[in-house]
């Protein structure tokens, strides 16, 4: 395998793996805090059981998230030393703050997981909240670092030198807010749907309904609210992309020609050679409207961008379509859920309703992976937009292909192991958490 391709694949693999664990590590503590809170307020032991059961699952995810994150902090240098040599001091600020946030998270986690019956109950609850808040803050910080790669700022680039470095300005780069918002909401949506789906499956199989129903509802509410907000935040993101990375936007939309009344292209197969999209639905003027708030102003197309600066068009386009389609689907499911809550309470016992959520278990995470593909592949060929090319940043060490195979094998095994363990957690629920046998 070509060294450069191998390095890119290994980075993508590691990040794609880490993101799943970090999303769960970020969001699950909030679910637990809610359930824990209800238990402390009502004394209903079901909620204590839900909290404990979740916390064991989360501990597994945390460990996996922490090790895969540790790997990433080395991989940035192992794979992209030239990038880190120049970018480290500029975009490193969020990473150093993130260190603090992780540390607090790790400490709070120690209190939370091992603190049952040891501390004041509300102090114990509070440590769980701290885990969630500091996890969320670390997520926001690391995304701010990524946003800097999309909209580099806080330095002057003169004759190949990086001068007047201002790490604070780099951290608050123009893209940090839209990306961090979109990512945080995505984490809630994806984790909410995933957790709700697992519990829905158990309810449908009539296993410990009194345990799984409250768990389902807590997770679903978080997921649903986030899913309904997500398209709004996506719209903000898209406008930002149009402003700072027209090439990425054009690739997302497979928008080849710059012309007035630029159409919004939905689906279709981009034909890069002939610069057109086959079998797509075109809504004339809509893209202009989304980007510029009027139907006429042209949106920069790929024809305005030199070929050597264009990202891979097909991948970016498909990934974007996939994310948006899943986003719409999740929003629709969210609305159905709200109808159930406010109007049709009996839907909760219906098989079709549960089935919808069971099918939706993975879609949030698929959307997350697709979204990151848009962001990262859409930035190519740049590692720092407009400043440094990815090909110039890669390590000189040959044989990265082997390293990539090794990491692929390890992550593949780990994923199987985590699935296996979660399966066993869920299987043991009746024995450990049956409220009839556990004294309150």
């Amino acid at each position, binding site marked *: 395998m070509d060294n450069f391709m191998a390095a890119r694949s290994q980075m993508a693999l590691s990040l794609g793996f880490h993101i799943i664990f970090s999303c769960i590590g970020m969001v699950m503590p909030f679910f637990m805090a809610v359930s824990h809170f209800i238990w402390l307020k009502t004394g209903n032991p079901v909620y204590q059981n839900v909290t404990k059961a979740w916390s064991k699952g989360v501990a597994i995810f945390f460990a996996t998230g922490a090790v895969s994150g540790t790997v990433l902090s080395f991989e940035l240098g192992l794979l992209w*030393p*030239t990038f880190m040599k120049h970018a480290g001091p500029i975009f490193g600020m969020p990473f150093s703050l993130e260190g603090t946030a992780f540390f607090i998270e790790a400490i709070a986690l120690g209190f939370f997981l091992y603190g049952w019956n040891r501390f004041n109950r509300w102090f114990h609850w509070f440590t769980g909240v701290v885990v969630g808040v500091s996890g969320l803050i670390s997520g926001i910080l690391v995304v701010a670092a990524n946003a800097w790669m999309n909209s580099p700022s806080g330095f002057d680039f003169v004759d190949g030198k990086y001068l007047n470095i201002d790490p604070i300005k780099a951290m608050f780069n123009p893209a940090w807010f839209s990306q961090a918002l979109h990512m945080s909401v995505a984490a809630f949506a994806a984790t909410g749907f995933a957790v709700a789906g697992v519990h829905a499956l158990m309810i449908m199989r009539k296993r410990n309904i009194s345990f799984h129903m409250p768990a389902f509802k807590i997770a679903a509410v978080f997921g649903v609210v986030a899913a309904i907000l997500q398209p709004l935040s996506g719209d903000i993101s898209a406008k930002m992309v149009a402003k700072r990375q027209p090439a990425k936007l054009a690739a997302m939309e497979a928008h080849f020609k710059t012309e007035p009344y630029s159409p919004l292209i939905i689906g279709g197969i981009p034909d890069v050679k002939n610069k057109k999209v086959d079998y797509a639905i075109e809504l004339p003027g809509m893209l202009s409207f989304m980007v510029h708030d009027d139907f006429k102003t042209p949106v920069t197309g790929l024809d305005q961008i030199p070929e050597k600066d264009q990202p891979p068009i097909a991948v970016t386009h498909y990934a974007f379509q996939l994310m948006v389609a899943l986003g719409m689907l999740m929003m629709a499911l969210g609305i159905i859920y709200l109808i159930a809550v406010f109007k049709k309470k009996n839907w909760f016992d219906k098989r079709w309703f549960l089935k919808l959520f069971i099918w939706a278990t993975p879609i949030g995470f698929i959307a997350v992976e697709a979204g990151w593909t848009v962001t990262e592949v859409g930035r190519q060929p740049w590692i720092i937009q407009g400043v440094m090319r990815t090909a110039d940043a890669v390590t000189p060490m040959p044989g990265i292909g082997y390293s990539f195979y090794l990491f692929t094998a390890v992550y593949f095994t780990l994923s199987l192991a985590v699935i296996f363990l979660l399966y066993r957690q869920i299987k043991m629920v009746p024995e450990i958490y049956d409220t009839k046998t556990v004294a309150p």
Partner: protein
Amino acid sequence: MIYVVIVFLWVALLLYLVMGGADFGAGIIEMFTSNKNKSRTRRIMYNAIGPIWEANHMWLIIAIVILFVGFPVIYATMSTYLHIPLTVMLMGIIARGTALAFRNYDAVHDNMQKVYNKIFVYSSFITPLFLGIIAGSAVSGRVDPQATNFMDAYVYSWLNWFSVAIGFFTVALCGFLAAIYLIGETHDDAERKSFIRKAKIMNVAAVVAGSVVFIASIKENIPLVQWVFGNFIGIAAVSAASVSLIVMWYLIAKGKRFIIRVLAGFQMTMILLTTTYKHYPNIIILKNGGHLSLIDDQGAEKTIQSLGIALLVGSIFILPALFYLVWSFQQKPEQVDNEMHGH
């Protein structure tokens, strides 16, 4: 501000060596425990390290972040020429962290436990071994940015007697730390004796490995003897460490719990001090005699400024919380046990 950053880097490395080291050592001790005592030892260890496992490993991340933000050239050079040992160490970190979590949180207790234990034990050995190799390689003068072939650039940079000996020395230190720590964690007399015996074995192993390091350094023309004994601080630190070692063994016989831990930590501090003092601020010595230095190769001024502030502010939050965490679980260690295995 650069000095604040350097102190944090040094302290993070020290704490990783001490806290993370004791943590790795727990696995190494498990390796040398007879089968019939294994599960009991494992439980004592788990009580001791479970709650602070995540926190212990943050020191490594802090050190790496300081390196890549503050000293990007050093970080880039290390990660290029020591790519292979770093990758092996990462594999060790992945295997160990997940095996520890899996064995504690697997809802079903069956034969899978054996698999987790095996992985845990081996990776507890591999990780500090390669950590030591990496540290040794940094100062061994084998890192060679001008190398023209693969072996010189990426293999002989770390595969030499000196680095490997330091690797084994690190492993022995970790085992030693863990044994000393565990002595204070048990109230059972027979068990105490067995941990004391392990501490002795590890102590001897560390001395042997340390001697091999010196021999290797002479063979490979690395002026280690001079770094350690060629200056006042070095001699003072070595003497202090030796004296404290004797005092420690005396206090172990007396049955003290906490002070012996402090002394073991003190010995690690002295070891890190002697090995870093003489060639400070240089932390990577290159084959052509040049070096990368914490002073000459620091990042932009504003970056160091903000990094220093971030570290200072961060430690205001972290240190009290960490202290309280360690302190609370020192009080009633047995309860962790009931909570995690009570079902």
